[in-house]
């Protein structure tokens, strides 16, 4: 019954449905997360034998006073702000265009999806070539407009921009697919009603498409925000295992990775993970509460 309050019975039933997922998630996500949380408080700790000799806030004190971490936080935020809105807008626009055309639409859809399927190694190579300051495609295009060559990958000023452009490009296909699904599940009759009510294409878009697409937009945004906060792979690939020139692409996860895998500072790595977690959490909770008002199911 739909207006029924949760009961023990309904809860038990729901948990049966959740069980397979819960089993996996608790074992492979929740448990390690708790472990990491605890690890962030271990200040003297033998990682391999799990012997903890001292706990405290030192790891957090360390990262909060570490200039590298400050850079990482700043870069991460710039990255998120640079990537998410653009990704959402561009992928929505392309999805809309793809949805409007008939001729060759299948071909175009596939083409736009390609970057997402192509392997990261291959992609990084191509972008190296595009970004190359001497003979890269991008500088070639810019030169047509009289712009002097830009050192996309080697200048701290442009490295983040290059990273943002590549990241948007890489994940576009993914988001386009989600938006296409969303667009296709909007019932035609609302567009019919809107046309009758005098809504032109733009008004149909703002008054029907956008509100009815809001669950998908919400999904894409949340996923984009979380994904961008966790940016690592693309940096590793684009800058050949470096965090960009003068750390200009050092993100929190990159920082974490360095601390963990190259410097063997588990506690500090965990602490930075915890900070990242709470940053994402705050942003997500804000998004969730915003969505209560603006997402229509």
């Amino acid at each position, binding site marked *: 019954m739909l207006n029924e309050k949760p009961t023990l019975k309904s809860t038990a039933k729901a948990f049966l449905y959740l069980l397979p997922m819960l089993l996996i998630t608790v074992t492979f996500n929740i448990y390690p997360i708790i472990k990491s949380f605890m690890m962030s408080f271990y200040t003297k700790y*033998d990682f391999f034998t799990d012997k903890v000799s001292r706990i405290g806030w030192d790891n957090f004190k360390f990262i909060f006073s570490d200039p590298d971490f400050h850079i990482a936080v700043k870069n991460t935020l710039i990255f998120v702000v640079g990537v998410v809105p653009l990704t959402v807008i561009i992928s929505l626009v392309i999805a809309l265009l793809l949805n409007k055309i008939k001729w060759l639409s299948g071909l175009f859809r596939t083409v736009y999806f390609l970057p997402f399927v192509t392997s990261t190694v291959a992609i990084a190579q191509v972008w*190296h070539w595009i970004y190359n300051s001497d003979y890269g495609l991008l500088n070639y295009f810019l030169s047509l407009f009289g712009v002097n060559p830009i050192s996309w*990958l*080697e200048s*701290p000023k442009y490295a983040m921009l290059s990273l943002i452009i590549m990241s948007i490009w890489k994940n576009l296909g993914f988001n386009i697919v989600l938006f296409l699904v969303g667009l296709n599940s909007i019932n035609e009759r609302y567009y019919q009603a809107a046309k009758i009510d005098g809504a032109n294409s733009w008004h149909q878009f703002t008054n029907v498409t956008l509100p009815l697409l809001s669950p998908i937009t919400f999904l894409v945004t949340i996923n984009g925000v979380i994904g961008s906060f966790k940016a690592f792979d693309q940096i590793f690939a684009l800058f050949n*295992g*470096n965090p960009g020139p003068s750390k200009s692409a050092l993100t929190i996860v990159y920082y974490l990775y360095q601390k963990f*895998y*190259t*410097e063997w500072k588990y506690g500090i790595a965990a602490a930075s993970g915890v900070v990242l977690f709470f940053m994402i959490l705050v942003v997500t909770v804000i998004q969730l509460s915003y969505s209560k008002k603006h997402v229509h199911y």
Partner: protein
Amino acid sequence: KDSTSSKSAAPVKITFWHGMTGPYQKAVNEIISDFNKSQSKYKVVGTSQGNYTQLQQKIMAAAKSNSLPTISQTTYTTVPDYTENHLLEPLDNYMIKGSNALSDSDLKDIYPSFLSSSKYQGKYYSVPFSKSVRVLYYNQDILDKYNLEKPTSWEEIAKDGEILKKDNVYAMGFDKSWDMEFEGLARQAGNPLISKNLKVNLNSADSLKAANFIMDMVNDGTAKTAGEDFYWTQAFTQGKSAFYAGSSAGVTQMVAQAPKSMKWGTMPLPTYNGKKATEIAGNDIVMFKSGSSDQKKGAWAFMKYLMSKNETSKWATLTGYVPLRESATKTDAFKKYLAAKPYNQAAVDSLPDGFQSNAFKGFSEYRTKLLDSVDAMLTKNEPVKKSLDTLQTQTEKIIKDNKD
């Protein structure tokens, strides 16, 4: 204990993880199967774990879950961290003591720089394996065109630069970072960046001079770093510079990429301050504590086998890495190989002057900072002095923090 009975039974399995892929992996496998055929007591099983990064992660995970292999390839700079966590078996009992130890002549035959980097806190923890050195690549076409000689010193290169600059050709090309050359120059000035007893000389007068020497070349346009290309190889094949200080392991790639028409060659790095030095890069093999004593014995047998004259010369001919001992360079096979591949000569010639930086606990952290520092000079135009001063303090702190 019961080694006789185990002889007739199945051979002891020795697991060996490495980061070799493609043709290198084939070479490893070949040598492993040689070893397995050479005796019946042990069976080495080698697995490639991708690249070094993944290999490191895998070792960490395995250590944590007590599923380490018997031996693994790794850079010797991780040894301090591994020992700190009690993961490594010291090799002294196998290498210099015991029935199957290396003989004195063996120890003399192996290049000293390899042996010294295998030692940490007075004990051997690793044996050298896939090693390469820095060599100088030169573009004969350019030398001919500008009537230049093959350089004998860094100072000469700088001078050549003045001529080449006019035609937008660099004298020297570096990889993305010039830290290896920096360390080399500093050494040649008689000043290891970090001494055996962990004195930090990063901003000493000699170090500053060395760094300034490189940065001056870069700043006045006589030298260039590879930047986004990472290796200078590509630029070199395009004739962008007359010289390139790169890894001897890059020869294979250079051969593959250079146009057939281009004339080029390799030679040992020139002198600086009148001295020769070349930094050795590459990986060692370590043995983990967790294996059984039989496995360890077998593992040592395998390690020794790898360093044997014939095998190391075979390894070198298969991969382009340098042989580990001098005698190996004298074998017929190796000579034939050099004749066929003259580009690899330079590496062998450099070996006597090879050095390796001293490993210590926190080395990776230090190395990250060193790269950051070079990067800052190159991309942020940070003054050399300022940059190295900061690095000096940071490094001293790293060493201090890791003491307790």
